[in-house]
């Protein structure tokens, strides 16, 4: 039987950051985000220990740990792993059970995930190799525009008339932005144009999978209010606000899977 005090952990090791969520009895005890270390196991270790510390726990207290993210298989203390696609679905569904579509925009990837009324994966699509439609795209564009990534969203919200950025290739987009700057176009308008271009690219995947309300947005780009706004316009619906940090959804999903797997394991042992 599962004891209410049992501790599970979910660790998400991505290409730019690592996240850990510690849970017990269906509640989040703590969560942490760090920049990646040179090695995935180091990232996993550091972020998990940090999260454990905030919960006043140590590695030995973990009863089950599931890892996810691109470094998911190199984590020695994890009992198992699962793809981040399933995790994002489960995590967002747990945070807001009305969610049926999850748009996850990470640093290198963009995924659109459909889940059923139990939070299980129904279907998904992932972007092609190119950077358009990922966090990387915004990073490059912010640099071209000469602002910090976090300033890009608020800047775009000041715009009254977004400029048209038409290209679908991030290299040509960069060139377009430079041209617009040379033409003396207002920077908020260009920033808004960038957000729109980004949202349009993401919509290709949304259309491919098919949207079903409610729609949630996860990953770092969810913190950019202008992209959220553009996406809502294209979606013609509101994006629901998750009550958790959108960046930890993957780790949360992994922690939820850890709970499920621990339950199963204990059931087996009892039999």
């Amino acid at each position, binding site marked *: 039987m599962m004891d209410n005090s049992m501790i599970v952990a979910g660790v998400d090791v991505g290409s730019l950051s690592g996240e850990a969520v510690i849970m017990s009895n269906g509640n989040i005890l703590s969560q942490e985000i760090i920049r990646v270390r040179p090695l995935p196991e180091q990232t996993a270790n550091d972020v998990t220990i940090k999260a454990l510390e905030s919960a006043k726990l140590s590695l030995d207290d973990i009863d089950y740990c599931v890892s996810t993210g691109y470094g998911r298989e190199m984590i020695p203390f994890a009992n198992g792993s699962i793809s981040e696609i399933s995790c994002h679905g489960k995590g967002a569904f747990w945070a807001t059970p009305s969610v049926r579509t999850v748009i996850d925009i990470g640093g290198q990837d963009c995924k659109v995930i459909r889940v059923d009324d139990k939070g299980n994966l129904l279907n998904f699509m992932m972007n092609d190799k190119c950077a358009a439609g990922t966090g990387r795209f915004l990073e490059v564009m912010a640099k071209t525009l000469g602002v910090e990534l976090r300033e890009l969203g608020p800047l775009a919200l000041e715009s009254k008339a977004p400029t048209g950025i*038409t*290209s*679908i290739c991030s290299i*040509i987009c960069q060139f*377009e932005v430079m041209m617009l700057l040379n033409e003396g176009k207002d920077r908020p308008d260009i920033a808004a144009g960038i957000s729109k271009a980004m949202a349009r690219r993401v919509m290709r995947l949304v*259309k*491919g999978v098919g949207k079903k309300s409610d729609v949630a947005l996860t990953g770092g780009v969810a913190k950019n209010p202008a992209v959220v706004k553009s996406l809502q316009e294209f979606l013609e619906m509101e994006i629901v606000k998750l009550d958790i940090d959108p960046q930890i959804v993957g780790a949360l999903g992994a922690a939820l899977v850890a709970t499920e797997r621990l339950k199963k394991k204990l059931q087996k042992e009892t039999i």
Partner: protein
Amino acid sequence: MKEEEKLKVPGYEYFKEASTASQAACFVLGFDEVDCLDDIGGQQFLVDEVLPKEYAKPFSHINLYTVDSLLRPVNKELGMVVAEVLRDWNMLAAESFVERAERGKKICYNYFTQSPEVILALDMVPMCVEVIGAIDALLYDADTCSASVDRFEAEGYPDFLCSGQKVALGMHLLGKVPCPDAFLKQPSICDPSNAQYDWWAEKCKVPHILFEAPYYANERAFRFFLSEYKRHIKELEELSGNKLDEGKLREYVKLGNEALSYHLKTQVLKAAVPCPDTGWHAIIDSAALTMLGQPYALDFFKANYEIVKGRVDRGEGVIPEGKEELRCYWGWGFNGYDLHFMDWLEDEYGATWTGCSLSYIPKFVGLVDTTNMDTMIESLAWRMFNWPMSRQGMSFSELWVNDTLSAARELKADCLMMGTHRSCRHFWALNKILSDRVTDELDIPSLRFEFDLFEHRFTPDSELKKITGDFLSSLNYSKLHKKREARYK
């Protein structure tokens, strides 16, 4: 049928509106002394204050590159003809859907390499899929065409497929263009179009009537092609329920011959220095070639011939006075969304358009022999066998390369522009062979660059200008002129 009933007929509304948008363009072109929209206060002003209400609505989505190009002084005379042709072609398309609803007249969506005389003589309506896509790209603003592309890609299909069909397919999925009664295709030429026509036919559950063109350009291959064309005609007869009538066919063939003869004569005139023809209508030439046997092709080619002839007689060119000319031959064709780009080449760099492989007709193609049914069928087959793209799609690169070299030579080109549609697998596999041969045998420079036939987002106008502008400013015109003069001594 009353207008409100017509509007319920699938297909009517879109083409009617396209016709009205073209009529609005004619209206604007009717203003004298107006060279660009800004002269009359810009688009918004026109829509709000000047245009009659029924014109204003479609005009608010019009492609401004196209309007600006039509209004350019040196283009304006032909521009009016093009706007009228677009108006009439679209009106006929709209009415054809009504006729189909009223009395079952059959509509065929055909590939652009098919000469439509036989379809017309069987009392069916030919509508070229690629021209349908071009209407969206050419007439309307970027958002309209992008919406069509996005709609098709939303089905999960990749972006690298040819927009020549992708746009029309998206228009279909958006409910603008209904299913035809059949698709007609030469399936040998290109894979992206084969796959997309097949998809569409499968979706509409209508016949997909083929005629195979073989790989070789020899007598045996032509005999096979002819046998395939005859088989194809039999299937068309079955579809239409009519028997092909010699007299009727001859009428259409004669009309087609007349139109084509003007195009062929213009082609010869374009060897004149300075080049007497403008480049903006490159894509219109290709489109008009799909309308042989209909009055539109004749109106267009005749008008252009007369304009070009007039310039040759007066010794005029089309580039601004005092500019040095750089004569370009295009090894592929040009895109259908940015007509203004060719104007820009002429105005900024004196770079003229002497021809392109998607509209150049080799001399040996000739006109259709109208003696009897057999001669007409055989020479129509001969025409299609050697039609732009049909011919290039055949054999190894030899045909494409040699045809391009001889056309470039004949038209006294100083430079080969190899701007090419991203979905042309053939061209991208032979572009290096072509540019090498051009360097070796003609000793002229060439530029390879990418665009998409109808998708402005792939390479926006600014990007096209940057690539070509950088290249053209690096060329030494007078050196190239000396070379040319030496070549033609």
